[in-house]
């Protein structure tokens, strides 16, 4: 197995061109139409956007439902969605639309936001670059993770799941090429990453790997 190539990334958000949504129906209609990049951004890239890490919900739709529509039921239903378990973003979109349609059929009045609380649809461009750093053996992985930037953590742990092998972080994929690393791979898979900020996740990955032995 070759060295682990440490990449870094920097993300820049941009407007999507979609009009802002002021109520639940508009949110539903815009989600039905928006590009996959918009969907991915609001579910997965929030960690790299300069905004507060909402402690209740990590995806923007759930946070908006709670904070601007005041719809706690919807926020809970959207908030529990793990975008990484879907085989592709269209399946994720289907699931979100299903929840929104169900909610729209339940409510007597379509929940709306106050002026200033509109949902703005954005997306991002990510620039990825090679840091020039390499990890030669699994033994060196925890220490290397401990010094990675937020961008590197994001790229290797989250963004990796969009790439082949889909749904797998880069660390696990790399460890899979070495015999006897099953414990570490399993340990990485048990990390409940949803509630971590990137700096917290870095610490958690180091902690989890620190507990396992290296063959």
């Amino acid at each position, binding site marked *: 197995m070759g060295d682990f190539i440490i990449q*870094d990334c*920097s*993300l*820049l*958000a*941009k*407007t999507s*061109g979609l009009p802002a949504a002021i109520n639940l129906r508009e949110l539903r209609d815009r989600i039905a139409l928006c590009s996959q*990049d918009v969907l*991915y951004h609001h579910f997965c890239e929030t960690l790299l956007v*300069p*905004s*507060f890490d909402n*402690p209740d919900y990590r995806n923007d739709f759930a946070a908006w439902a709670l904070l601007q529509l005041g719809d706690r039921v919807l926020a809970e239903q959207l908030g529990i969605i793990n975008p990484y378990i879907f085989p592709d973003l269209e399946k994720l979109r289907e699931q979100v639309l299903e929840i929104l349609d169900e909610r729209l059929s339940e409510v007597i009045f379509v929940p709306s936001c106050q002026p*200033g609380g*509109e949902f*703005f649809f*954005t*997306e*991002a*461009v*990510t*620039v*990825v*670059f090679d*840091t*020039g750093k390499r990890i030669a053996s699994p033994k060196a992985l925890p220490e290397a993770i401990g*010094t*990675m*930037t937020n*961008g590197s953590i994001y790229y290797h742990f989250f*963004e990796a799941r969009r790439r082949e092998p889909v749904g797998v972080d880069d660390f696990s994929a790399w460890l899979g090429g070495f015999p006897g690393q099953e414990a570490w791979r399993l340990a990485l898979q048990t990390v409940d990453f949803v509630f971590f900020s990137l*700096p917290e996740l870095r610490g958690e990955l180091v902690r989890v790997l620190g507990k396992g032995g290296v063959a």
Partner: protein
Amino acid sequence: MTKFLSSYEGLVSATVLGELRQLGNRLAGKRVVHVNSTREGGGVAEILDWMIPLMQDVGLKAQWEVITGNSDFYAVTKKFHNGLQGFPVTISKREWQTYREVNEENAVRLRPILEEADFVVIHDPQPAALLGLCPDRKGKWIWRGHIDISRPTRSVWRGLRPFVAGYDASIFSMCQFAQPLPHPQFLIPPSIDPLSPKNMDLDPEELTRVRHQYNLDPDKPLLVQVSRFDRFKDPLGVLEAYRLVRKVQPVQLVLAGGGATDDPEGQEVLDEVLEAAAGDPDIHVLLLPSDAHRTINALQRLADIVIQKSTREGFGLTVTEGLWKGKPVIGGDTGGIRLQVVNYHTGFLVNSPEGAAHRIRFLLHHEALRAKMGGRAREYVREHFLLTRHLREYLTLFHILGSREDASIIYI
């Protein structure tokens, strides 16, 4: 003062600085020209003052050019500014002509520099017409709108849009501030420089000196709002909130601002504030000179709670400054304050003097929580609103615009 990236070691992690150098290395030698309308005064000049040397430090050939104009030109562009922010103004044909002429005069001087540059960043509407006056441009041109143009006076935006539409990209501080344009619109919030006189660490002796200078009582909790005397900053609402708090506990208030003398409405608001504050020794209305950065810094550091009770706000860098000093901020529930103030985490958003009073009392009552929120506030700014993030996003933008790929992920 020349600034180097290494000066920020310790304030941000070494990995963050390394990341900037890596992004910069891949742009080494690229010529970047920023153009605005003033070398001193105002937020844009403050940003460019640090951004140019730091861009140079990471390898770019960055320079800063300033357009010059007569008083008629600045009268027009002031009208642009007001009109773009939604105030009803009318721009005459003669005024549009003045705008074009001044840009033409500047283009004669700037064309050779701008047409050769790899990236040109034009700040705000004043120099926006330069794009059309540089037909042989080689690089990418970016228009950076620093103000909120979400609800402009239509006639003003209709007149300006043709000057802006031809750019390769534009930048806004928040998506709420943008207008539909036929090119990508990137979102880059502003930032603060932690080493500037307004934000640098100060000796305790200096804080004591400022406390004495303004007769502040060390034994009474201190509330501080720093802002222009402007109705949208709601200084009278802050006074009302203060009075509601004072009914139940001793407290003192500083309302500090500057620049009211050249703004007729500012003077009017200041007069109203002085009248409302008259006779109360615990209210300190301070009209400070525009270069009183260290005094403002000290007042924010002396505060127990920083207030920015705006009813309308752009991004609100005074909020960022307060958070950076480890103070919870009670801010108006509007604009960029919402990006920064999060209930129970970095402060509280409020919608009325009563709401502000309630949250002031809550925070004064919960000293430990106040300290905890202040700590979180500082880390939040460190993570998101320091100049290092700002610089990284500019470098990222240059990579995106310089790439031949039109994809959501670009490998460089």
